[in-house]
């Protein structure tokens, strides 16, 4: 194994889909703006060279001829080159083929019934399903997507996959709750949720992870954004993670964001095969509040795993300066007491920002990591 540079960089998840992808995969001809964006991106990244026929058809208004899958192939190539051009050490395809992180995996399973939309806030909604029967997986998912990335990535691929706890928390629990006797109060609800999480882990996640590993996946990010919703269920997050990864050999990371991490400790530390915590910090970091101070807690508990250090706020357009990124890395290194454990990444997926802003942020992140590296090598800087 080759030694890594200090403060390697990685992405976390999804990116905003370009206009040409959205129009193209719907079978609509590209408008002038979409064509211009495609040409500019290809001029810069040369992503479509091996798919010249598809590129030409798309630019010629023949989206239907390319087909939705063909357009998504082009988009996946675009995102790989986009992230590689930003200098990232670990990349994926911007989740170009995924609508979002809940509906797609649930649709690969039997035992669920989609119930309709729930309001998240204002006029934003999400589709939510209920588990109504035994969970059964037709076949592992994300496999073809990973095959494509592996075949085309020049940097090391890291595949993200929604974790069992989040899939359970974002679903309604009917099947397992119905099996509980008596009034369905807090105790019954928790017992039912535990069964649900573990079944999801064993019957859906683990076979999928095993298939991905068999196809060559070495770094797998388990996304558990729901982990902070119910802090007293941190043990269920862990139980799901351990069941999903049981007996599997890969480098597993766990991404959690917008949570009070101290509330999840020390329970979370029992996630046995998790090698890296990829957490959001920049969003909560301000002159009034040190967003990285929570890292002290890991040191207090003696946890020596890697940290995927969120240094880019995905909810603001303002681009962090490289100096700001470097300062954040330096502060985190001080709290952890070991700079070699730090990977540098955005807080979360950058799909909330335009591709232009995301690119500027990622480039600043790379320059910031280099500054932090140089400062450590030459403390006078």
């Amino acid at each position, binding site marked *: 194994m080759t030694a890594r540079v200090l403060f390697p960089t990685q992405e976390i998840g999804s990116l905003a889909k370009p206009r040409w992808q959205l129009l193209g995969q719907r079978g609509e001809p590209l408008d002038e703006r979409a064509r211009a964006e495609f040409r500019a991106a290809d001029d810069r990244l040369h992503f479509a060279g091996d798919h010249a026929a598809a590129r030409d058809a798309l630019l010629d208004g023949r989206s239907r001829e390319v087909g939705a899958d063909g357009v998504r192939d082009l988009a996946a190539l675009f995102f790989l080159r986009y992230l590689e051009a930003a200098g990232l050490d670990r990349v994926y395809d911007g989740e170009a083929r995924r609508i979002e992180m809940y509906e797609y995996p649930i649709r690969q399973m039997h035992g669920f019934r989609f119930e309709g*939309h*729930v309001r998240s806030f204002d006029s934003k909604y999400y589709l939510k399903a209920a588990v109504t029967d035994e969970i059964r997986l037709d076949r592992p998912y994300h496999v073809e997507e990973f095959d494509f990335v592996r075949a085309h990535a020049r940097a090391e691929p890291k595949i993200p996959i929604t974790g069992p706890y989040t899939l359970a928390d974002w679903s309604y629990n009917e099947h397992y709750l119905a099996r509980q006797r008596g*009034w369905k*109060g*807090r105790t019954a*609800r928790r017992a039912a949720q535990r069964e649900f999480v573990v079944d999801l882990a064993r019957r859906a996640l683990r076979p999928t992870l095993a298939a991905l590993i068999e196809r060559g996946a070495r770094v797998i990010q388990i996304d558990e954004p729901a982990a902070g919703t119910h802090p007293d269920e941190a043990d269920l997050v862990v139980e799901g993670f351990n069941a999903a990864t049981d007996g599997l050999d890969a480098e597993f990371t766990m991404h959690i964001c917008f949570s009070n991490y101290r509330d999840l400790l020390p329970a979370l530390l029992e996630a046995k095969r998790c090698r890296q915590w990829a957490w959001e910090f920049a969003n909560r970091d301000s002159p009034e509040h040190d967003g990285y101070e929570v890292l002290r807690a890991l040191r207090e508990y003696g946890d020596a795993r890697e940290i995927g250090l969120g240094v880019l706020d995905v909810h603001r357009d303002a681009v962090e300066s490289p100096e700001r990124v470097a300062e954040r890395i330096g502060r985190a290194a001080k709290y952890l007491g070991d700079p070699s454990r730090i990977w540098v990444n955005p807080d979360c997926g950058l799909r909330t920002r335009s591709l232009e802003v995301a690119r500027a942020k990622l480039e600043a992140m790379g320059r910031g990591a280099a500054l932090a590296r140089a400062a450590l090598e030459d403390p006078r800087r």
Partner: protein
Amino acid sequence: MLVRTGLTGPFPRSEELVAATRDLDRGRTTPEAVEALYAAAERDVLALEERLGLDTVTAGYLRWADLFRPIAETWEGFTVGPLTRWFETNTFYRQPILHAPPIREPGALAARIPPALRSDPSRARVILPGPYTFAGLLDNRSGETESALVHRLGRLLGEEVRELRGLGYATFQFTEPWLVVHPPEGPRAEAVVAGYRAIAAALEGGTSIVWTYGADARPAFDVLDRLPVSAIGVDLSDTDPERIPEAPGGPGLGLGVLDARTTLAEDPAEIARLVRAIEARRRPAVTWLGPGMPLDLLPHAPATRKVRVLADARKALGDGGGP
């Protein structure tokens, strides 16, 4: 046994309304078209509540963005702040930021009550934030202490109640999850009681219900039982029904018997058994049945199924129309 039923929070928007509000955001429809859908959807919720014989009606509060927004957007002293998680759910509210002691805007809240309720306000349930939850969840930059703010908000909500009583509204629910998630003690508890005294003084024969959810209510009963209100509501999904303390002569009791966190429908006969057991022990003058958490944590179809359970539970308890 006097049993009353009613919704305790917003009802979910129909799938048609979901699509329309999304389209409005994307510029694919007009505000007028969405307004017409809101009006029709409110009438549908009202018709459902009436068909099922609920004692109070809400028309769903479909337009309310969150519990605080009607006040935070109209009273002086507030701005609307960042998205913030609503307790342990995957829904979010915009945290009100209070920059100075708030000043109530007369008529503003009345204008935001669903139009479908205005023709017969006597049966409407007006849903408001409770002063303790409001004070506890806003970003207080006003310089006032939390206890003083709780009391002040109680007085202002009392003024609101007085105005709405004048318009014919009679039943007021104060939504107070914070009371059980962070039960107040000492001066804060006294401020809560004082806030509700101010509300009670304005009630003039109306009904006031404090509705809690989000945590086991037992640690909060010392305060809850002191509140000068018509009923206190607890969510039986979080509070063990068998451990609700006795309080003969205390306020009426509200029981959250529908769990909005699951699509699994409750058994009306089991609800009836629980309610009878609790009433035998606590002997409330009146028992209000409703969902614990607001039903808008569910999509429209399962929420509609659940609210039917409420009516069936009422039937299982007998007619519920008298002592």
